[in-house]
Every structure is written in structure tokens, then in C-alpha cells.
């Protein structure tokens, strides 16, 4: 896992910052909050610990509805930990602890009495490694979230098609929905996992390095999917690939750990981060001087 990160980072060294800024500027710019999709997601003073180990310190970030935010930074800077605190997956690690607030539509997801399963239905997640359920067919995989949370829908077939279309997988699998999820290629499996996350209609989709295990072709395909999905939901994507951050995101947050806990150094519209970062550490990172 670490090796692939390193090689990706190496690739970055050959890229000049101006070209990344061009990439960031080339896509259609979106103003935040243009659609009525809730007021979005805010994090207030997020800290995270594993046992005594303080891994993330005081992150304050707002994610406007309908935007894509990329989180970049070297390995071990707390990006993944941060997004896992958002949908409360952090708490599965033994010894984990946190502080701060995650406000979804103004309500703290960590408030006492909150039903954590409802939170995870509203905030979906796609993992680094594609992980379809091997005992289920493609169709069952897409609808598995409904089954897991015991929701009933009347129009299963429509939902199935809609999710697969939005995940960009429909044309490839429409004739073999009964096949097992494991029979797909890696890229297809990852899009299946995206379709699975979409089926429960989340407001927010977290993506934890969704392309790091995939080939370049599949990566592009998934990036297209992300751009299309961002019309209807808030997306937060963790990536080591700065090209990818530039290509898909409206906003970018840069995380860094300087020996101590990881911190968010700078967050700004993506084009600014790549053309005129305010912090020298950000500049050093995006120009490939370290990391």
C-alpha cells in the first residue's frame, strides 16, 4: 500500500504547478450551495487519537452542498482518519477517541442518542480497495444497503438501474445482474461499490483513495462518475494523486503532519491551491518539493 503511494508521489514530481492549476481551471467552476440539498457538512475542531497517539489536531472544514472537496497530503497526515470521523467509522478501531463536532445539516452526528446507522446512511463511503460482498450477485450488491438497514422500496428495478447508470456501470453489467460481484474487474468492482453507496441515497459521499488500487483507465472512468455525481451530493475524496485532485475537485484541503498530530494546513478553491497557495508548506507539496 505504501509503495503505491510513494510511486504516485514520485510521478507528481514531474508535474509543474502551473499545469495542475490549468487542469483545475479547465473544468466548469461551481459556486457552492447552488442547489437546495441541505446546508451541507461542517466540522468543528476535530481531533482524533489512537490510544495515546494524537493523530489529528483541530480540523475545521466546511463542505458546501453539491461540491467536491479533495483532501491531499503525504501518507500518515490524518486525511483518512479525518473522513472516518465524519461517518463515525473511526470508532471501530480499538482505542480510538475523538473530540469536536461534525454537523450534518446543523446537527452533531456525535450527539448523545444519535442513531449511528442513520448517520451512515446519510453519509456514504467508498473504500480504497473494492469490497463487494462475494456472496451476493451484482444486483444484490447494489441493493445491499437497503437490505442491511431494512429499508423497503417499491421500485427496486428502477433504483438498481438508476444507481448503476449514475455509477457508470449499467451498460457493462445490465445483462448479467445475476452474476457474482467478484466476477467483475477491479475498476468495475469499485464502481459497483459506488453504486452500492448511492442506493441508500446519501447526502454526502466519502471516498477514501477510491482509485489507488485501479489502473489509469478505470481511474478516469471513476473521475467522470465523481463529476457527474457532484451535481446531486457533497463529495469528499481523499487522494494521493494531485492530478486527480485538480481534475475532480472544487475545493482542496491540504493536510500535513510535522512530527506531531496531522493538521489541516490550508483549504481553498482547488485552482488557488495549485496556482497560488498561501502557505509555503502547501506550495512545497504541490510543486513536488517533498512528500
Amino acid at each position, binding site marked *: 500500500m505504501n509503495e503505491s503511494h510513494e510511486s504516485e508521489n514520485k510521478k507528481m514530481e514531474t508535474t509543474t504547478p502551473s499545469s495542475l492549476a490549468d487542469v483545475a481551471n479547465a473544468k466548469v467552476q461551481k459556486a457552492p450551495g447552488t442547489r437546495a440539498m441541505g446546508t451541507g457538512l461542517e466540522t468543528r475542531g476535530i481531533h482524533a487519537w489512537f490510544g495515546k497517539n494524537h493523530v489529528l489536531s483541530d480540523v475545521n472544514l466546511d463542505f458546501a452542498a453539491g461540491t467536491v472537496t479533495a483532501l491531499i497530503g503525504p501518507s500518515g497526515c490524518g486525511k483518512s482518519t479525518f473522513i472516518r470521523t465524519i461517518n463515525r467509522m473511526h470508532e471501530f478501531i480499538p482505542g480510538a477517541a*475523538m473530540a469536536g463536532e461534525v454537523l450534518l445539516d446543523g446537527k452533531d452526528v456525535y*450527539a*448523545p442518542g444519535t442513531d449511528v*446507522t442513520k448517520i451512515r446512511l446519510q453519509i456514504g463511503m467508498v473504500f480504497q480497495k473494492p469490497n463487494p460482498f462475494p456472496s451476493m450477485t451484482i444486483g444484490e450488491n447494489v441493493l445491499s444497503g437497503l437490505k442491511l438497514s*431494512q429499508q423497503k422500496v417499491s421500485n427496486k428495478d428502477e433504483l438498481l438501474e438508476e444507481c448503476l447508470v449514475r455509477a457508470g456501470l449499467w451498460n457493462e453489467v445490465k445483462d448479467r445482474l445475476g452474476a457474482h460481484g467478484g466476477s467483475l474487474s477491479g475498476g468495475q468492482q469499485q464502481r459497483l461499490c459506488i453504486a452500492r453507496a448511492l442506493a441508500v441515497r446519501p447526502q454526502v459521499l466519502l471516498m477514501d483513495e477510491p482509485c489507488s488500487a485501479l489502473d489509469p483507465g478505470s481511474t478516469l472512468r471513476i473521475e467522470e462518475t465523481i463529476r457527474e455525481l457532484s451535481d446531486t451530493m457533497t463529495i469528499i475524496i481523499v487522494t494521493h494523486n494531485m492530478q486527480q485532485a485538480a481534475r475532480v475537485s472544487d475545493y482542496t484541503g491540504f493536510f500535513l503532519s510535522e512530527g506531531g498530530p496531522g493538521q489541516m494546513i490550508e483549504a481553498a478553491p482547488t485552482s488557488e491551491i495549485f496556482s497560488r497557495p498561501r502557505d509555503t508548506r502547501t506550495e512545497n507539496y504541490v510543486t513536488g518539493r517533498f512528500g
Partner: protein
Amino acid sequence: MTTISTPTPTRPWLPSTKDKLRDLFFFLLSIVATYVIVAITPMKGKLAYFILFFLLYMSLTAGLQYFARGSAAAKDAFVSSLVAVGAVLTVMPIASIIGTVVSKGYKGLHLGILTTDMSLAAPTDPIANGGLLHAITGTLTLVVLALIMSVPIGILTALYLTEIQGSLSRPIQFLVQAMSGVPSIVAGLFILSAVLYPITKGYSGLMGALALTILMIPTVARTSQEVLKLIPDDLREAGVALGGTQWRTVAMIVLPAARSGLITAVILGIARIAGETAPLLLLTGGGDTVNPNAFNGSIGSLPYYIWKSFNAGSPEAITRAWAGLLVLMIIVLVLFTLARLLGTRKVAR
């Protein structure tokens, strides 16, 4: 640099005091309701208490979750109670066994228990007559003999499976597994048919030890194999790369590194056979006097003593059986604790 005051770590996902109080309240409510229902309905007995309490607690917690969060959460709460009951049912017999053996067995203990045998005591004699000397020395003899035979074979088998990994590895692995499933009575019959009838024609400690050997080999082999697998391959490669033969590498690097794990394997093997009864009933004759000769004449053992006393049926004999069980249980517990303590550091640094 501005210094940020770090807040204290919290775990908001853990149940709050309010949640804990609520659970405790439900728990107490279920107990009270159970007593009330048992009192006013014809349902009686421990079973009624247990089942009623479970049903009440389960429906209270599941009901709460149903109204608060819906049917999925209710099912989850129901299953949480169910698996906890599974764990309770698993552990309850062992608590009962240990409790009974201790409470009944201590009455059979007396000062002379480790210094006298049963040669001059009848089953109906008072407890103070006779003791366990013959049984303990007998069990010791049997175990030592079985150790001498089974440990080399067991460890050689494990070495074959981990160091040689020849074409026979899979079948042998399978056979070792199959051997661990051989019923002890079959092992006894086998020694009876293959050694006792044609060759020695009489009970002896050796016969019992042979049967115990068959039962002990798979335990030693499998546990040793697990331990040897934990020895990193680079240790072996280092040994061979330094010009050592495979034999010397195994003898001087692999086995010493696995030493405490191998001792654990042997201890677990002893625990497996120390209380084995069925083959001893066929092969050892179970004498009442101390027999120092393991190769000739009937020899007592703890399991045989317990079995004999239990079947004699008189109250004194039953008490003797419990006392024997207590001693046997303590031996197994000590062996097992020893294995645990050693097992926590399977591979020596």
C-alpha cells in the same frame, strides 16, 4: 506558531451514564417481573426463572429500540441478548462443575491422602482410611511413560510438516487430524489386541501408557506445528546460509527458538491424557496398592480410582470419587495455567 490547547479525548460512541442507568433499570425490572410472574403463575423452577428473565429483558430492550430506532435496531438488540445468553450457557456448566467438585471434594480430603493407598481400605470405610498415593504415583508413571514415547514422535511429525514439507505433508496433516479424533476406547482396544493379548498377556502400566501415547501424539504434533510455523523463515535461511546443515539449523536454531512453545505443546498433551479413563479401564487393571513396576502387574491411576469409587456407590466411596476429581481437576488446571503462561511467549527472542 500559535499553541492550540488540546481538548480531552472523548468516546461519544460509548454508552453514556444515562444509557447504562437505563440498561440497569431494565435489568432490575426484568428480575422483579420474573419473580412476580413465577409467584402468581404455575410456572416454577430454575428453568422458568431463566427463560422468563431472558424473555422479559430481551423484549424490554428490543421494544425500546423498536420505538426509538425501528425494526433493524430492535433485531440487533434481540440478537445482542441472544449471543450473551449463548456465552452464559457456555460458561455456566464450567462454573457448576468447578463449584460442585470443590464443595463436594474437599470433604474427602484428609491428612493421609497423599501418603496412603487403598490396599487396606474398603469402599465403605470412613474417609480417613486409605488415600490416593497409589493413584497419584500410578498416573505419574503412566504420564511419564507416555511422554517418553509420544513427545519425540509428536515433535518429529511437526518437524516433518514444517521443515521438510515433503510430498506427504498434506496426507500426514490429514492423518494427524484423523488421529486426534480416534476415540480413546478404540486406542485401548487396539493396545489390547495388538500388545496385551499376544505379547504381555497381563495388565501393566506400560499398556496404559501405550494407549495414552496414541492419544497424546496428535495434540503434541499439532501444537508443536503451530509453534514451529511461527519461527520466521529468515532464521532458517540464516542458518543454512551460514553453512549449517539442515539438521544443525533445526537442532541449534529452530528448536531452541521454539522451546517454550514446545513445552506448552507437551503440557497441553499431558492435560489431554491425565484424566483419560476408558483405555485405562481396559489395560491397567487398577490395583489398590502402589506398584513401582510400570512393566508388570496392575497399576492404579487417578481416573481408575475415581471410576472405581464412583461405581462402588457407597456414600464414602462417592466422597472419595469427588476428592479424586478435585485432585485431578487441580492437576489439569495447574497444567493448563502453566501452558497459558508459557504460551504467551511462544517464540523466544
